């Protein structure tokens, strides 16, 4: 088959599953207690825009297929996504659950007790999978796909991350324990999903593949958007903000 006159014939039957085109992210609603930092006005970043080595990390758990259907797992996961996260980390998404185009805030617990504020956009969602994509400044540039599929008499529930560290600082952090921390995060999350479906003893398998060993040094400037640095500055400024708020309360503007 060869033709210069071929016209696109894709039926676009997946159109409703994809987020609509956006050039910059905008958080629709900031829930109480959430820190809205490093998301508004940011562009999405795929692994192509990242700095570090490119990794594909797969975490999977097998559940009995005769009583747990893939669609049931994904529907529950989309509805209660943040509930399955390890404690101390917060996913502030819409109460109605994960839908394409949603922008959610993430407030994550980091080593040393610091907090990292960032976000994600729901890039794609259907009955058997959904994908979150990261913005500029996130610890990594890429996406995470959550899926469930029938394999024989089992329902295989999977989290797959395709990523590059966003900048040299995050690349160093990932090398010095960050990868292990991420592996534990998603392992624990999948364990919580399995426990929710009555399989608390289910074992999470992890497979890590380095897709590209090369670092993209032309992307080192991504550090400008670093959510770690900006979150640290935000936390350091907290006493100043507190003092300003106190002053405003004592001397309200007329």
């Amino acid at each position, binding site marked *: *088959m*060869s*033709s*210069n*006159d*071929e*016209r*696109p*014939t*894709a*039926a*676009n*039957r*997946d*159109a409703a*599953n*994809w*987020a*609509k*085109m*956006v050039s910059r992210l905008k958080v629709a609603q900031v829930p109480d207690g959430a820190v809205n930092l490093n998301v508004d006005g940011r*562009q*999405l*970043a*795929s*692994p*192509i*825009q990242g700095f570090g080595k*490119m990794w*594909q990390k797969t975490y999977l758990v097998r559940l009995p297929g005769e009583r747990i259907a893939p669609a049931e797992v994904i529907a529950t996961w989309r509805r209660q996504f943040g509930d399955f996260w390890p404690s101390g980390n917060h996913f502030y998404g819409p109460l109605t659950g994960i839908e394409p185009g949603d922008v959610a805030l993430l407030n994550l617990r980091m080593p040393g007790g610091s907090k990292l504020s960032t976000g994600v956009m729901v*890039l*794609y969602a*259907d009955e058997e*999978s959904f*994908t979150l*994509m990261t913005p500029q400044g996130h610890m990594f540039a890429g*996406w995470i*796909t959550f*899926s469930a*599929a029938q*394999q024989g008499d089992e329902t*295989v529930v*999977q989290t*797959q991350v*395709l990523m590059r560290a966003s900048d040299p600082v995050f690349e160093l952090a990932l090398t010095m324990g960050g990868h292990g921390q991420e592996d534990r995060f998603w392992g624990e999350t999948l364990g919580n999903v399995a426990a929710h479906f009555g399989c608390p003893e289910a074992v999470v398998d992890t497979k890590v593949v380095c*897709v*590209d060993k090369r670092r993209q040094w032309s992307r080192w400037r991504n550090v400008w958007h670093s959510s770690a640095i900006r979150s640290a500055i935000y936390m350091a400024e907290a006493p100043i903000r507190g003092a300003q708020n106190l002053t405003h309360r004592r001397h309200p503007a007329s």
Partner: protein
Amino acid sequence: MAEATATFDVRRHGSAGVLDIRGDVTAGSEDVLMKAYESAGEVTAVVLNFAGLSYMNSGGIGLLVTLLVRAKRRSQRLLAYGLSEHYRQIFELTRLDEAIGIHDTEQDALAAAGVARRGEHHE
């Protein structure tokens, strides 16, 4: 995890390989896509023809990123044509369009790859 539901036929145009994509591109298409890519042989450019695409999910987009890494490793250019408006927007949304040149027709894609449309043979 998923089964392959797409086919990738390979054609050669001089130093470019054209992959005609048909069906549903998902994460399950990895093996067939990579086999098709390898069978294109020593080429300077790989042109993806999406005119026969009927469906692609985020796993399919992930595959294209992996393909891009392989192509870059071999100093090959990756180009695309035949994308519907919907998939063009997805390429833009995921910022794949910054690394994969998108064109309206095969002729445009081959011209951008610096390949003249002369002989053609199927593999």
